[in-house]
């Protein structure tokens, strides 16, 4: 096992990794910009190195600075966390070239999944379901009708040269297809002087559902069920839960098995997440994140598996400590992302935290680097805390969420706690009736 791990990240995820390391008896090196000298994980780490000024490009994204810091401290592995360099294949390669272990997947898998077009091709080859489409221009109504049988309805006809919704038509069923096809071509011709169109399945109200993968370098690959991350604002996840209120156990097992098979074909190693859109019983691949995910705690809460620990073990050459048959799901978990932003306007609110008091008690986990007196720097992501709660049922979980949101004190900066408080009492959320568009509509309808 490693003696000393350098954590090439900041904020709550750096603290999360530090905790896993110390629980494994591994020493930690925190690297930080000048803006983060007083950060909690820096204070708790066994060693810390200032690697640059506040701008990320000169500190948390500076490959030479981070590798130099690992060299001078004698770290034998680097954990990239999430964001920053965590999906940078060049960084992963350079780390390994310097004789330091990169705690993550093989660089070629990072590169493959980082290229979204290549990733979609790979997903199809690996047997992951992708949105069915025409795979190229469709030149006639007849061809459109022939292809539609495989694509399925509702179906979207899009201008190949298009953008901004122009030259885009939805056909609800076969009867509506010919006219929609003609209209889309006409609009495309008028708008882009190019009447080439292609077709794909139209997803009107999909959910965002992702599958957590865990793999060692020895061919052992398991999935840890799904997370529902449909509550999004501007493609940023706001609240995640597991299991998804929309799936039954069979669906979960099936998509999990499909994901595991794909990862076995790929020869994947480390943690990873395969993201899908889900609508009416079908999954469609979006992308794969070849790293730890912000919302990993909800999976940890329902499975009892420590993903960061397993990730570190796998990087050190150990085998997984769990087999697929060991993984049992217990209860329900939710994570609120608490951002240093005004809860209605989402204006960032960096600054000094005057009072801080995290909720405690049964079934509660808080991952946060905040403390009273800490100053949230203005240079980085606004995520400052993750409140994760567990309950034996989804209803228990929501009640616990409300109770903990009542208790959470973060004074001095604006946070999104009031938004989560409102979400937690909203019927559509309570019933699990939401999709990826729901939260934006909910926000638009909020008063105050």
């Amino acid at each position: 096992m490693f003696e000393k791990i350098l954590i090439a990240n900041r904020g709550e995820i750096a603290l999360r990794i530090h905790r896993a390391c110390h629980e494994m008896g591994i020493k930690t090196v925190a690297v930080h910009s000048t803006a983060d000298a007083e950060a909690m994980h820096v204070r708790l780490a066994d060693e810390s190195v200032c690697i640059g000024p506040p701008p990320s490009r000169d500190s948390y994204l500076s490959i030479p600075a981070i590798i130099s810091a690992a060299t001078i401290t004698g770290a034998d592995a680097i954990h990239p966390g999430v964001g920053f360099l965590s999906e940078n294949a060049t960084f992963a390669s350079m780390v390994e070239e310097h004789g330091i272990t990169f705690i993550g997947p093989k660089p070629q898998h990072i590169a493959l999944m980082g290229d979204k077009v290549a990733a979609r091709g790979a997903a199809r080859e690996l047997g992951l379901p992708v949105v069915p489409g025409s795979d190229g221009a469709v030149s006639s109504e007849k061809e459109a009708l022939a292809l539609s049988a495989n694509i399925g309805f509702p179906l979207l006809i899009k201008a190949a040269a298009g953008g901004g919704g122009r030259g885009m038509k939805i056909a609800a069923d076969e009867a509506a297809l010919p006219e929609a096809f003609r209209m889309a071509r006409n609009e495309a011709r008028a708008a882009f002087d190019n009447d080439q169109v292609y077709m794909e399945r139209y997803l009107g109200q999909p959910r965002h559902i992702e599958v957590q993968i865990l793999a060692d370098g020895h061919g052992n690959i398991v999935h840890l069920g799904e997370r529902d991350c449909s509550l999004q604002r501007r493609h940023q996840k706001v609240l995640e839960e597991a299991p998804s209120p929309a799936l039954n156990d069979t669906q979960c097992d099936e998509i999990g098995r499909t994901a595991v098979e794909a990862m076995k074909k790929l020869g994947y190693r480390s943690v990873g997440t395969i993201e899908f859109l889900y609508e009416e019983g079908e999954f469609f691949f979006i992308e794969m994140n070849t790293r730890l995910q912000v919302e990993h705690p909800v999976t940890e809460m329902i499975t009892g598996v420590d993903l960061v620990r397993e990730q570190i073990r796998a990087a050190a050459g150990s085998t997984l400590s769990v087999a697929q048959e060991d993984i049992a799901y217990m209860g329900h978990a939710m994570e609120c992302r608490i951002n240093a932003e005004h809860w209605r306007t989402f204006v960032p609110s960096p600054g000094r935290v005057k009072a801080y008091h995290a909720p405690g008690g049964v079934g509660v986990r808080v991952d946060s680097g905040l403390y009273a007196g800490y100053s949230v720097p203005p240079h980085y992501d606004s995520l400052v805390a993750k409140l994760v709660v567990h309950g034996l049922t989804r209803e228990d979980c929501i009640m616990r969420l409300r109770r903990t949101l009542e208790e959470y004190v973060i004074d001095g900066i604006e946070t999104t706690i009031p938004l989560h408080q409102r979400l937690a009492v909203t019927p559509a959320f309570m019933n699990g009736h939401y999709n990826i568009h729901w939260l934006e509509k909910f926000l638009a309808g909020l008063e105050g």
Partner: protein
Amino acid sequence: MALGNKLDIDEKQVRRLADLLNENGLTEIEIEDGERRVKLSRQNGTVSHTGFAAPPVLASEPAVVVAVEGTSPAAAEPEGIADAVTSPMVGTVYIAPEPGSPPFVKVGDQVRGGQTLVIIEAMKVMNNLPSPRAGTVKEVLVRDGQPVEYGEALVVVA
């Protein structure tokens, strides 16, 4: 400027100065303009705190000295030590061109602007650190082969 006996305070100006202090991690700003003088200062160790903001006392002491250095003013504020030339990168510092050679500079030397003070090795590349100004070497704060952080004070040239 003076309005009768009342002290004429430009609140905006002070506020702007306070912001400057904060943003730059300074400990003091003093401005004199003829009769007028404005001075803002902060105590060194607690630069960014009003006191209640004092970082929590950890239940366990940091295990290693580097951790303390990491939160020291030197790391947090490159300008911490007046007239010190600070490290522009993380790496290993060498005070002489080769093992056994005389050092680039020693205390009392006169240096030109642009003259090499030390070398910093990062990623197996040797980077010359030129003096930002002409002056006298007052102090060499690092040992040969010592690891240095970004912003760490290396040589005092005044």
